[in-house]
């Protein structure tokens, strides 16, 4: 069973559209994260939720809105997509926040046309 799964794996869409990426973890972890990896492989944290509550919200445009219906799910909704949003988005989870090792999904490659 995949520990952290995110869908879709690929997302190709046009500028201005709204899209969502879903993430689920079956590890029983309390904390989940969204990261953005750009074309140069820099990986930057966007959001972190602990037991459905937002604990990290980096300087991310408010077009990005995370939603955690329960502690096993953290979805990412993006409004009015822009060319600069093209990247690979990774979901991750850890037993709790802080210094715990994180488990990553395989990423969603978002391409904006």
């Amino acid at each position, binding site marked *: 069973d995949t520990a*952290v799964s995110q869908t879709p794996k690929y997302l190709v869409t046009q500028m201005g559209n709204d899209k969502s990426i879903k993430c689920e973890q079956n590890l029983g972890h309390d904390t989940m994260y969204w*990261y953005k990896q750009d074309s*140069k*492989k*820099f*990986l*930057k*944290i966007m959001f*972190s939720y602990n037991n459905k509550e937002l604990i*990290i919200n*980096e300087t991310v445009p408010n077009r990005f809105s995370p939603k955690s219906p329960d502690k096993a799910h953290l979805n990412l909704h993006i409004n009015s997509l822009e060319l600069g949003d093209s990247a690979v988005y*990774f979901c*991750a989870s850890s037993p709790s926040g*802080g*210094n715990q*090792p*994180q*488990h*990553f*999904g*395989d*990423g969603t490659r978002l391409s904006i046309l």
Partner: protein
Amino acid sequence: SQQGEEDPQALSIQEGENATMNCSYKTSINNLQWYRQNSGRGLVHLILIRSNEREKHSGRLRVTLDTSKKSSSLLITASRAADTASYFCATDSYGQNFVFGPGTRLSVLP
């Protein structure tokens, strides 16, 4: 600049050789972690070393931490083609979010 920065950016070695990657950081840390990323996949956690530890081993991996120099190294011994991947260090610091470096791309040639 990045809190954690790996060097070299890219490394190419022959199978069987050892590979050493370095990570430097700027502020005091709670711990430092190394991750591997295979092409098209997510990151996989390799080793966590705490600020009061100097060396840790896991199989063919050896990680050292020098807090006085604010640096860490990851040594992979007897490398295999399957070790080809990008390797990232990540630092956990007081009052800061988890920060990943830009990674070292390792190519192990058969």
